[in-house]
């Protein structure tokens, strides 16, 4: 609420601040912990969220043991979790539910979003638009700290009596209203995380609108910036309803209100002592009003990264830049009117049901267009298969599977059979794991040299990529098969006791082994990451012969203030292999003559949109 205050305090120092005060004049705290430099904050976000990703993944590697071997003691480490979680190494159902709920929460709100938006957005956007920093550096720092403490609170919830939240990442009441203390902590944590995202989104929108370099019109923005721009609006307008809902659930839990509790509840034989009169469905509306846009928050920045990497490694302009931009904007709008496709089976009548099915089908079209444009961008390319490119290319079919499996879910009649089965789990993991996570890996391999001034090892990179691709499919494709057979999700026994699941049970082993294999594979990445920090080969300023400002106009790593001189932009973002130039890339800020004749592209597609 004190945000305007923050905004005020924001630029109080700016006017006094000397343009390029060097970092090393500051102590450790100012430089690292309380830095207001977007690059430092971006790296803070990146490292923190990578840690959370690994943690969230570990939760599921643990849960997958129980799914593969229901009721069997987990050797060696099992016992370490204590009698309240895994007595004698055997996992308790309540702990399994905690793992599921926290995995979802951590991956979405503490892993992917902070990495994609907080990490890449913070580090790359100002550089790509030729800005010295974010518009509100102090606010930026505040966002990170809100995120950090939100994360700490979430982790702490594992240690409160009764353990962490265990009502799913969706936290549907009444279950979540009557759940143990962990749920309260979850709500508080969420409020921190939401606040962080809100402050961040304001910062991004203002930065992108106000701080673009001279000549950098909207249709000259790198696609990544567009993706971040739309994402910021989704966060800005979709998160507040969940914040409101979290307040209400908090009231239900601590102040005894009945926002989500109807009259006449009987829990374990006892009538619940509440006023009643609430509506459980209200929560679902408010939750999904956020959570559907949220899923596009998970994918749009990823698509942005993919576009950058593909353009750079095909050495040619993206195919249909404008179509991409319009599609991403269209997705942004539409994502606010499809939320109830998660609620088809709450007793919806035909009319609203038809409405939400239709919007859901419509929103799939822009995604098809984006995928198509990205694939067609490969035509006529001169592809370099370096590690970032490999992850970027793999993203396309993987997202394809994830997206396509969204269609049967979007058709409510088909959803009757598939709702809340592992098919849903398979669907969205294909988009978020081999989809988004791969895109994030691509981004790390791509921008690591810029951020650290050192290259990552290609060998380790490829050792990381191929097994990851294999195992990802090993985990998630079977989910589609199990779901098709009707196996429910969130089953502590992995479906072992169900008649209809018998034929597909054996897949559980495949999936679990793949998950552990995937975990092992990440060692290549972690080693590569830390080894390259120290020992990686020094990187050139424009390591990838790229056209966008972060590469062409700033050294690696960029100094405080980013650019020695304010870059000026003369053309669109992806002027690769321009005819009549022997150098195969023409940076946005290169004033050379060829600029003129590539001004607004000739022929199809229009590579540099007309101004």
């Amino acid at each position, binding site marked *: 609420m004190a945000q305007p205050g923050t905004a005020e305090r924001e630029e109080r120092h700016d006017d006094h601040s000397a343009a390029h005060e060097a970092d090393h004049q500051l102590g450790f705290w100012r430089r690292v912990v309380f830095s207001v430099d977007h690059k430092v904050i971006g790296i803070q976000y990146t490292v923190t969220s990578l840690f959370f990703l690994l943690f969230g993944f570990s939760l599921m590697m643990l849960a997958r043991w129980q799914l593969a071997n229901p009721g069997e003691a987990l050797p060696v480490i099992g016992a370490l979790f204590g009698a309240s979680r895994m007595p004698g190494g055997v996992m308790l159902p309540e702990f399994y539910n905690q793992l599921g709920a926290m995995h979802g929460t951590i991956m979405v709100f503490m892993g992917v979003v902070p990495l994609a938006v907080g990490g890449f957005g913070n580090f790359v956007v100002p550089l790509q638009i030729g800005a010295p920093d974010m518009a509100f550096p102090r606010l930026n720092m505040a966002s990170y700290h809100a995120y950090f403490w939100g994360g700490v609170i979430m982790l702490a919830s594992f240690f409160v009596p009764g353990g962490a939240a265990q009502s799913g990442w969706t936290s549907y009441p009444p279950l979540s209203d009557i759940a143990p203390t962990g749920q309260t902590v979850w709500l508080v944590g969420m409020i921190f995380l939401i606040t962080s995202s809100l402050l961040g989104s304001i910062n991004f929108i203002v930065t992108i*609108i106000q701080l673009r370099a001279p000549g950098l019109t909207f249709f000259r923005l790198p696609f990544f910036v567009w993706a971040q721009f739309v994402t910021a*609006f989704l966060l800005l*307008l*979709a998160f507040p*309803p969940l914040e409101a809902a979290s307040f209400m659930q908090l009231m239900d839990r601590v102040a005894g209100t009945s926002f989500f509790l109807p*009259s006449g509840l009987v829990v374990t034989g006892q009538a619940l002592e509440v006023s009643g009169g609430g*509506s459980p*469905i*209200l929560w679902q*509306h*408010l939750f999904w*009003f956020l959570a559907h846009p949220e899923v596009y928050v998970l994918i749009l920045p990823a698509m942005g990264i993919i576009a950058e990497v593909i353009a750079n490694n095909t050495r040619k302009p993206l195919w249909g830049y404008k179509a991409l931009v319009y599609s991403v904007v269209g997705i942004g709008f539409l994502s*606010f*009117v499809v*939320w*109830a496709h998660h*609620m088809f089976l709450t*007793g*919806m*009548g*035909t*009319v*609203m*049901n038809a409405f939400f099915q239709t919007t859901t089908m419509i929103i799939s079209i822009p995604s098809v267009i984006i995928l198509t444009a990205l694939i067609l961008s490969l035509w006529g390319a001169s592809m370099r298969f370096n590690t970032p490119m490999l992850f970027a290319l793999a993203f396309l079919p993987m997202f394809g599977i994830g997206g396509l499996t969204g269609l049967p879910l979007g058709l409510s009649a088909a959803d009757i059979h598939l709702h809340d089965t592992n098919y849903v789990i398979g669907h969205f993991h294909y988009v978020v794991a081999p989809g988004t996570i791969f895109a994030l890996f691509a981004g790390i391999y791509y921008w690591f040299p810029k951020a650290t001034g050192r290259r990552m090892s290609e060998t380790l990179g490829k050792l990381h990529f191929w097994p990851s691709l294999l195992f990802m499919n090993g985990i998630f494709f079977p989910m589609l098969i199990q779901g098709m057979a009707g196996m429910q999700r969130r089953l502590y026994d992995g479906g072992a006791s169900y008649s209809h699941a018998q034929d597909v049970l054996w897949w559980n082993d495949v999936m679990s082994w793949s998950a552990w294999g995937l975990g092992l594979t990440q060692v290549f990445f972690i080693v590569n990451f830390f080894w390259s920090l120290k020992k990686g080969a020094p990187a050139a300023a424009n390591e990838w012969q790229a056209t966008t400002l972060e590469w062409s106009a700033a050294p690696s790593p960029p100094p405080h203030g980013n650019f020695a001189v304010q870059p000026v932009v003369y053309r669109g973002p992806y002027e690769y292999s321009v005819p009549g130039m022997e150098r195969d890339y023409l940076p946005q800020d290169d004033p050379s003559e060829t600029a003129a004749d590539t001004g607004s592209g000739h022929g199809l597609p229009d590579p540099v949109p007309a101004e």
Partner: protein
Amino acid sequence: MSEQHAVDHGAHHDHADVDRHVRVYVLVFVALLVLTVVTVAISYLDLPTGPAVALALFVALVKGSLVACFFMHLISEKKLILWVLALTVFMFLGVLLGPWITDLDQVKLFGT
């Protein structure tokens, strides 16, 4: 246009201009007080729910617009901000009416 420009461009500002605005502020202030009395008065008529709600919301809407347009200077605000607000209004209506309309189409509501 109004003093907005002057402010934005930090140019020097002629007081007469401000004074004109101050007069407007006072008028708006009076209008708001009157309308407040009006809403309360209406509520004592105990109209049937429908009209009562409509009327109360209408008055509130008028009051709100007065504050937004004059105190918050929206009438003379930059296009960009009006666009942001237009988008917001769209989403606001979405979150306000979406759940309700969906709920009206419930297969069966118990107790109602």
